[in-house]
């Protein structure tokens, strides 16, 4: 895991007195966009502080691009950071703020870099206004531009969509998508599941300081064999299909209503292999088959509840 652009956390813990905020977390992030999810107090922000070099782990190790992050300013050549606190120097204009970031990074052509970053977050119209007059969403975009100005391999964002209106959110999601698609590593925390679902299939879920699950949330859902999978099915003969399906060993229950069938399944693989055969043997035409609890919200609620 020494590739540049890779985030590596090795058995990292962080406690504050008696409170364990992050508990023995091990994770490795590669290129692409990853969502960091968890209920309030789960330890997301503490983990991001550990990753950004602004908090030493009480135990364990955190590396970015193969370099330790704590007491190592060189890591910021690789790393861009948007913290949760939205404080900015209110007396600077947006342009001055982003340009100062470019200069502090000692970029060879800071004006060009600042122009690129400001255009990327669509802040050009307000760039010469003092940031003290900005809305929350504008300040957030200025901070994202400052974090991106040196084109970092790794971008960490704590609640990046806070204060943005829907149009700004969509635009920021597009920017993060593009950055991830370019092979950069983007980790963002959010408590809004729809945002994570739209932006990233890959999640790291934290619950009570621990990493509860990691990976593509649909895959995570399929691995939760202790919870039945729910499928919404519509067919040419819902009643007949329900009768045939209850006989399958993988089916735990079937509900029939006006909208069709709700089938609870114990074994995802067996059911999806058996269903076409059942339809063919009974002569029933399948019109719709939807896994109805494979949303991130379902996965998240199952993880938190467990």
């Amino acid at each position, binding site marked *: 895991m020494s590739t540049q652009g890779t985030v590596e956390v090795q058995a990292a813990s962080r406690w504050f007195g008696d409170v364990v*905020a992050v508990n023995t977390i091990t994770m490795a992030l590669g290129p692409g966009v990853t969502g960091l999810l968890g209920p309030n107090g789960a*330890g997301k922000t503490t983990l991001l502080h550990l990753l950004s070099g602004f908090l030493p782990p009480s135990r364990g190790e955190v590396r970015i691009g193969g370099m330790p992050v704590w007491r190592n*300013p060189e890591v910021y050549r690789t790393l861009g950071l948007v913290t*949760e606190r939205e404080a900015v120097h209110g007396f600077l204009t947006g342009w001055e703020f982003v340009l100062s970031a470019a*200069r*502090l990074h*000692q970029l060879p052509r800071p004006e060009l870099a600042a122009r690129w970053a400001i255009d990327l977050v669509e802040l050009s119209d307000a760039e010469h206004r003092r940031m003290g007059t900005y809305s929350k969403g504008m300040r957030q975009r200025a901070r994202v531009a400052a974090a991106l100005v040196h084109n970092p391999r790794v971008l960490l964002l704590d609640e990046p969509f806070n204060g943005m209106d829907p149009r700004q959110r969509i635009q920021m999601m597009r920017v993060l998508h593009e950055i991830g698609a370019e092979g950069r590593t983007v980790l963002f925390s959010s408590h809004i599941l729809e945002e994570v679902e739209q932006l990233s299939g890959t999640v790291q879920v934290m619950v009570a300081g621990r990493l509860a699950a990691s990976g593509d949330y649909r895959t995570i859902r399929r691995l939760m064999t202790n919870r039945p999978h729910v499928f919404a099915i519509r067919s040419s003969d819902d009643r007949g299909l329900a009768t045939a399906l209850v006989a399958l060993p993988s089916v735990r229950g079937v509900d029939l209503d006006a909208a069709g069938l709700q089938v609870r399944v114990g074994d995802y693989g067996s059911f999806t292999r058996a269903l076409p055969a059942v339809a063919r043997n009974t002569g029933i035409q399948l019109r719709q088959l939807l896994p109805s609890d494979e949303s991130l919200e379902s996965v998240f609620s199952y993880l938190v509840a467990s």
Partner: protein
Amino acid sequence: MNPTIARITARGLVGRRRFLLLLPLPLVLLVLATLMRSFDSALEPAVTTVLIAFGIAVVVPFTALVIGTGVLGPEIDDGTLLHILAKPLPRREIILTKFAVACGLCLPVCVVSLFAAGWIIDSVRLGAGFAVGAAVAAMAYCTLFGALSLLIRRPVLLGLAYILVWEGLLGNLVTGTGVLSIQQYAVTIAGWVSGSGVVDGRVSLPVSLIMAGVFTIGATLLAIDRLRSFSIAGSTG
């Protein structure tokens, strides 16, 4: 010295309301010096009450307290310091720049006002003596109070305690405290440079020079070390 950090720090400092608190102190000093001169007061009480008791003991430390804590403290409190810290810059460069800005703003205020007051009261030489004493003290105070911003959450309170309790109260009651009193170093250096017999410090000149250096350099090194280990206050979010 990093010009970008210097510009942001200076603009942040000058733009804050509490910076306005600095204006009256040098003006009051000059008014007092002028009154002493116009009333034809004797030299010794004029030097003791105006230049030492007000100039060195009030104007210099309070100016340095406002400026020294102002270059780091507010940025730590509101989180804007991260804009500078999340950059590949040696922490030494950040601290040296911020302390240079603090000294660059504090020195003119202290040096010019003490020089003018000394000149009004007696002579250019007396003014020069107090200007040098004020310069040495201003640098030591600025770095000390700047370093306090990285050590504790309420640097202004501890700075006030140092000025009022340690130097002001204990300094008059317990002679040994003078060894750790920047105010006493300034008086000794002012007396030596001005050659005036009425300016008599309680600490010897070598001790004053060495200890002023220890305060200035020690506080700077301490601040650099603390900034290397700067961490965001505990959060469980």
